[in-house]
């Protein structure tokens, strides 16, 4: 083959895992909780930057070196040397960074839910979160003290990078990136199982009732504001985790990666798959990632066949196709590929199977 198939599969798996986390989190917030989060990229970005900063600070600290200025070339070289030579340190720092990223993002989710849940009209919430995400980007890009400003915070290595550090063998490089992709898919699977259990629990039904009729839920004695706060916190933590996983994959935390188009893609994924449906989120995510990667492969193939096509043009067409998919879905198939299904309570399962697996 003309290009690296294994490398391609690994990168598809990595990006798929990260976006599965994002689409599951938005699906929990919007599909189940009814919160139209148009600023999901804010929590993704917060997760990425906090993970980057934690890893850049802790690696030299644990190795007994001076931390100094994390943006400097010297610090970058030190970090990379430590993570290439010390497996234990690099994996443990990575895990700490993931936890911190999820925590920081969930704190911001709580803070964002405060104004967002108190606004008068429904779409104000979307506006506030959208503006919040843009503010974050402007602040991070122009504040060198936080995340190194415009150039971003570089040198956040793959936690399994030590496998291939002493050789140039492509097999070992694939092994280290493949291992990382497996780890990401592991997180995605865990969060899918979690989301599935969550959605089919009494709490999931409470969320749906809050989404469908707030006044009714309140009349039944449910604390609607509290529930909406909780779902924002959980969703943001998942998005923050996705951001942290992404930053260790791409190696640099840079503000321009966290633009509104990312949020838009996540929305297309969940609408395509079917809102309030975790399986739908998985399907929608793979469809969109397939589209995006497909355009990239098409670009490479066209280049190899020496057909001169501007590679940017393919990216533009990709965005146009995404937007067209979304519009057509809203018009002709608003429930998505897999429509929302009834919550699987014990009673429902028993009814569904004709009373056969009551003890299941």
């Amino acid at each position, binding site marked *: 083959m003309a290009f690296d198939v294994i490398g391609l599969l690994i990168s598809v798996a990595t990006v798929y895992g990260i976006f599965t986390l994002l689409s599951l989190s938005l699906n929990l917030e*919007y599909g189940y909780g009814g919160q*139209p989060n*148009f600023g999901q990229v804010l929590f993704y970005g917060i997760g990425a930057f906090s993970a980057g900063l934690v890893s850049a600070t802790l690696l030299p600290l644990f190795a007994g070196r001076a931390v100094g200025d994390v943006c400097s070339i010297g610090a970058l070289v030190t970090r990379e040397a430590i993570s290439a030579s010390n497996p234990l340190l690099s994996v443990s720092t990575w895990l700490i960074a993931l936890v911190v990223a999820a925590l920081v993002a969930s704190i911001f989710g709580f803070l964002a839910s405060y*104004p967002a849940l*108190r*606004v*008068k*009209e*429904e*779409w*104000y919430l*979307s*506006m*506030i979160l*959208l*503006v*919040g995400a*843009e*503010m974050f980007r*402007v*602040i991070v*890009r*122009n504040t060198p003290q936080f995340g190194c400003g415009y150039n971003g915070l570089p040198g956040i290595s793959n936690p399994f990078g030590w496998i291939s550090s002493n050789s140039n063998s492509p097999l070992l490089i694939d092994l280290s990136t493949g291992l990382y992709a497996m780890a990401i898919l592991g997180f995605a699977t865990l969060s899918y199982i979690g989301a599935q259990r969550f959605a089919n629990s009494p709490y999931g039904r409470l969320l749906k009732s809050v989404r469908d009729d707030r006044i009714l839920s309140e009349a039944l004695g449910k604390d609607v504001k509290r529930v909406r706060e909780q779902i924002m916190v959980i969703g943001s933590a998942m998005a923050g985790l996705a951001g942290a996983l992404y930053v260790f994959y791409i190696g640099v935390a840079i503000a321009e990666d966290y633009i509104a*188009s990312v949020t*838009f893609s996540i*929305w*297309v994924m969940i*609408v395509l798959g079917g809102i309030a449906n975790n399986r739908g989120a998985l399907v929608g995510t793979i469809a969109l990632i397939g589209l995006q990667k497909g355009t990239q492969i098409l670009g490479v193939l066209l280049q190899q066949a020496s057909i001169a096509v*501007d590679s*940017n*043009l393919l990216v*533009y*067409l990709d*965005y*146009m196709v*995404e*937007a*067209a998919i*979304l*519009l057509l879905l*809203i*018009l002709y198939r*608003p429930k998505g590929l897999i429509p929302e299904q009834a919550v699987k309570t014990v009673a429902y399962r028993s009814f569904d199977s004709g009373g056969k697996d009551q003890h299941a």
Partner: protein
Amino acid sequence: MLEWLVDSIVLSIFIGSIYVLASLGLTLTLAVVKLPNFAHAEFLTIGAYTGAVISSSFPENFLLMGVGAFVVSGLIAVVIHFLVYKPMMDRKISIYTMVLASFAVATFVRYGVFSWASISNLLSTHPSVSIVVVGSIGTTPITNIYEIVVPLALVLSAVVGLFLTVTRLGKSMRAVASNFELARVTGIRLSIVVPFMWVIAGGLAGLGGVFLGIYTAVTPVLGSSLLLQIFAVVIIAGLTSMSGTVIGGYIVGFAENTLMAALNNFFGVPFTFEPLLPFAMILVVLMFRPTGLTPNMMSGIAYARRWLNRSKTKVPKEGE
């Protein structure tokens, strides 16, 4: 000395005028069809490119550029209405989904312009018009563009205001805005009023885009980079007030330029933080005063009027 102040005030009035042109249409959209149209800023891009293309055949012809941009942006707005928004409104789709759909329209139009511009090699272009300095205030030069835009924005907002209060079509537009169902049962032809509203909304934004393109440069992100600023204007105006939008445009213009220049001068805040000012305005207004500042402006005007007329309307005292 105070050159920065004069400079920034002159610039504020210019940018404010462009914001007024860009936002009037969004206010109209929000009032008549209740749609927060996130694709509105793309009309500026379309207008700017139309102006640039026209100017390559007819250089220096501001009238033709303006009219062409108005017509093309207006028509595209109507096409979007018929293809996307009208079918969705007929299906009574929820407001969140409409917002999402307007995002999709914006993305589609923006990358459509991107594709066309990259094929035609126009990713960043300048309309062929010459910017001439025609006068100055202190040391601050005043250009011919400035002399066109500022009066144009004021005159057009007055024209739109007159149109809404005097003509039959304008009155029916206001009727639709205040009560959709009632307007329909009264026999107002929605099939005429709503598309006409889109022509005005898209056209005014396109016109603003022409002058913005002359002032900066025509790129496919010309409009979308100002989306949230335009929303800030409309939100400050309380979403549906036309006179509020005119004032709101200048408020945002002054905040971004004069206030920013002052912050830079006195506190050393770098100019790169400029977008944070309108963003912060959106957050503060939505959270604490979702009706916008128009009621305050109106009560301020009423108060001033009372104060001016205080001698005439004096209440007679007891026993007089």
